[in-house]
């Protein structure tokens, strides 16, 4: 039987293997070294690689994100950790105006092989400034790639590909998934960016979800089956570039689409997917595309409100029934 390891270890293995493989790769961020990561993702890496390649930074996201961009311009391959992606917003200009555009502005003279990684989204009652999904911001920006793994196996394979990729990659993890275990092969492997995974084949309804929401779907599946709904579950894994074909092929089969995302509804990634599918598979849709998202509000602290705001099993089942025109 294949070994089971936690998400954080899968990420650590990906970084460690790539750093051993390529001297140009280094890890930089707040608490990544001596503290071994705010969420212990980089445990043991300082000891293994030393302060030169596992670099603790002050709290200065614009500063060290920019340092990463500059280092990438001259051939290093930085992994910049944001303690959480909420803090990437103070470095937003570095990602959007520098990392994403320098290649174009220089007429292709410079490549930006840099990964910005860290957890995104809500954890448990962390309040409005610490509970945001930022993927919609980054997916909007040409020049960036956006990756959001949902399980340890993909996390390791995708992070290795992201580190080897010659473009700026926004790699968003999840605080609540770091401890989640999953099968991860012993032998080395990579998982290509830009390819979705069909998590569960099905006939009635296509459900697209990523990161944490895949775990919500796992919890919702029994209920869906109880409703007699045979769902085809797709995990895009990379949100930009999006694997349109896999999603379209599925919708052409099931004729129904439900998108489940943790972020805000207005202008969320799901809106883009919905636009795409109605544009390219219009005649295959038997019902409006449905979305389950969080409510359109900043996240309050209170546990009951947070629960009511985030997507839930009940909301997924209800939406699935709605799409299929069944009484729920």
């Amino acid at each position: 039987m294949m070994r089971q390891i936690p998400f954080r270890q899968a990420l650590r293995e990906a970084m460690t293997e790539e750093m051993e493989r390529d001297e140009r790769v280094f890890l930089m961020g707040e608490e990544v070294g001596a503290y071994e990561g705010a969420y212990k993702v980089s445990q043991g890496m300082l000891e293994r690689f030393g302060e030169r390649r596992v670099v603790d930074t002050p709290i200065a996201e614009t500063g060290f994100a920019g340092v990463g961009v500059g280092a990438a311009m001259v051939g290093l391959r930085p992994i910049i950790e944001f303690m959480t992606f909420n803090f990437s917003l103070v470095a937003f200009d570095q990602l959007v105006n520098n990392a994403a555009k320098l290649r174009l502005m220089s007429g292709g003279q410079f490549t930006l092989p840099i990964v910005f990684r860290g957890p995104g989204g809500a954890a448990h009652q962390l309040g409005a400034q610490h509970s945001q999904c930022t993927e919609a911001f980054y997916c909007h920006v040409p020049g960036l790639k956006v990756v959001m793994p949902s399980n340890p196996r993909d996390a390791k394979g995708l992070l290795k590909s992201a580190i080897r990729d010659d473009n700026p990659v926004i790699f968003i993890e999840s605080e609540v998934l770091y401890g989640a275990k999953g099968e991860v092969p012993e032998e080395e492997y990579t998982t290509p960016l830009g390819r979705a995974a069909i998590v569960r084949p099905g006939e009635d309804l296509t459900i697209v979800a990523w990161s944490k929401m895949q775990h919500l779907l796992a919890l919702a599946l029994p209920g869906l089956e109880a409703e007699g709904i045979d769902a085809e579950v797709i995990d895009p894994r990379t949100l930009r570039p999006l694997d349109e074909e896999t999603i379209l092929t599925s919708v052409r089969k099931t004729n129904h689409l439900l998108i489940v995302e943790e972020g805000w509804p207005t202008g969320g990634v799901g809106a883009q997917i919905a636009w795409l599918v109605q544009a390219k598979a219009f005649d295959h849709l038997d019902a409006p595309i449905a979305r389950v998202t969080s409510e359109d509000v900043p996240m309050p602290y209170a546990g009951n409100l947070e629960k009511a705001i985030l997507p839930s099993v009940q909301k997924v089942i209800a939406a699935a029934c709605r799409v299929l025109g069944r009484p729920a």
Partner: protein
Amino acid sequence: MDKTLVLGLYRDMLEIRRFEEVAQRCYAEGLVSGFLHLYIGQEGVAVGAISAAEPTDYIVATYRDHGHYLARTHDVRGAMAELFGRATGCSKGRGGSMHLFNAAHRFLGGHAIVGGHVPLAAGVAFASKYRSEKDVTLCFFGDGSANMGAFHEGLCLASLWKLPVVFLCENNLYAMGTPLYKTLAVEDVSTRALGYPMARETVNGDDVLEVREVVRLAVRRAREESLPTLVEAKTYRFRGHSVSDPAKYRSKEELEFWKQRDPISTLASRILDLGMATEAMLKDIDAEVRRDVEDAVTFAKESPPPSVDTLYEYVYADGEGGEG
């Protein structure tokens, strides 16, 4: 020294200490969630500084805000209920530990993006000056803010526009698990003031009276000359960064050294030495604040959570959807 003043400061620090101890207990019991950053060990700073300001002066703080909130409002119930995420909390359960607010007491939060509230505080001071009001703004932040762009821009504007604000850096030697020497090329955060330039002071944050005195002068500079000051208070947090941090990065000896400087016990000894109060009287004060804190726990427990029907409240001033 004025006896009532000193005993009052003692009581205020103790109120914070007991509140934090109980908050930690409630967190362990699962009654409080999210991040919980305790102020234990730093009480001298918030109490000394806020006692040096008028009740009408504005306070802006970080996520480590219980001490500042209580020193200003003494609203133990509202703070505890907020930690519990109840509708009776000072932020109606929306803010939690990191985002305590109280408009009536001019307590402007509780902010969780390091450095992000520094320009905001400059803006509050800007408003006072704009309205020719004599209020001063006190802005608290940690040593970790010193490298942030927002800190720089806030101080640049405050210096340029001569804003009535006191920037108070609580230098507790650590930003999470990182000791200051690893993130700051200078020993004193107040050195930063040289570049703006801005008046600066460095004070022993564990001496509530010293803090009070230094901040009093900074507040006066702000109120009378409309000039900002960067005050650095050297202090130490006795607990981890948050309750989930075992703080393994610090030595027992270091912790012990600082505990000898505990702002509360050191003041207690002085009070006794000076004969301002007896052991018994101090015990009574302790008993009283403990009662208040336990009463707050009961209050919080008995308070209802926010109604889920109010999910869309407080997003837009004009209600759900926010039509203009």
